[in-house]
């Protein structure tokens, strides 16, 4: 007589067909198109554990007319409001040597159809501003 049974144990999330996902953007004034630089959408039946995100900008040569300089990582949950947990944004005229960097504190779990986007914009003109944004995470089966 069977008096007990154990359900089949489910593997931990990192053993459920994990795929390592990483995106990196680097660009400088005049060398890239403003806006989204990479987009990752979580496929159906998967989850995405974003463990690292970075945004940075540094000024090699001062701009000649001030404007937006922004490097950000944007997370948009499916059907939800987008958030920018990493966002370096400056509006003032930058001077050579200025650096702004930001790392994600903690981690984010993104559900199916959610997106992770690297965003970089320079509307300030002249000079040489270097931009970078990057993300890393593990996509795994629900």
């Amino acid at each position, binding site marked *: 007589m069977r008096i007990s049974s154990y359900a089949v144990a489910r593997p931990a999330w990192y053993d459920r067909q994990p795929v390592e996902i990483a*995106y990196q*953007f680097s660009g400088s004034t005049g060398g890239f*198109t*403003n*806006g*989204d*630089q*990479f*987009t*990752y*959408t979580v*496929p*159906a*039946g998967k989850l995405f554990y974003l463990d690292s995100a970075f945004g940075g900008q540094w000024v090699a040569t001062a701009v000649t007319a001030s404007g*937006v300089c922004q490097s950000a990582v944007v997370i948009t949950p499916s059907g939800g409001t987008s958030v920018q947990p990493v966002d370096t944004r400056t509006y003032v005229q930058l001077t050579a040597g200025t650096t702004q960097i930001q790392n994600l504190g903690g981690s984010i779990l993104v559900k*199916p*159809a959610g*997106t992770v986007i690297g965003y970089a*914009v320079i*509307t300030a003109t002249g000079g040489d501003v270097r931009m970078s944004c990057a993300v890393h995470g593990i996509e795994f089966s629900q």
Partner: protein
Amino acid sequence: MIVRVGITLTGNVLQPLSIPLPTWSLLVADVTIPRAIVDVPDGDVPADVAAYVAATPTPDLITPLLTPFPAALARSWREHLARRYDLGEARWKPEVA
């Protein structure tokens, strides 16, 4: 997989182009053409479209395609993405351009 695709212009100076794919990494774009060369996950491209891309060189943003991108492959790509991202009706309509 590196693919050259046609892009949509949005008219927004901060976000001037829209790429009709769920997951991509932009390598180079020209909004005046308009085309972009992007890196997309291999799993997002069905086998027939991958074969077309392998057979059709796109060395830069300007050189036209040797053979036009067939409507049947465009439909195949749309449906593949709709299934993979489980969003019912096809939301992305990418075309090799």
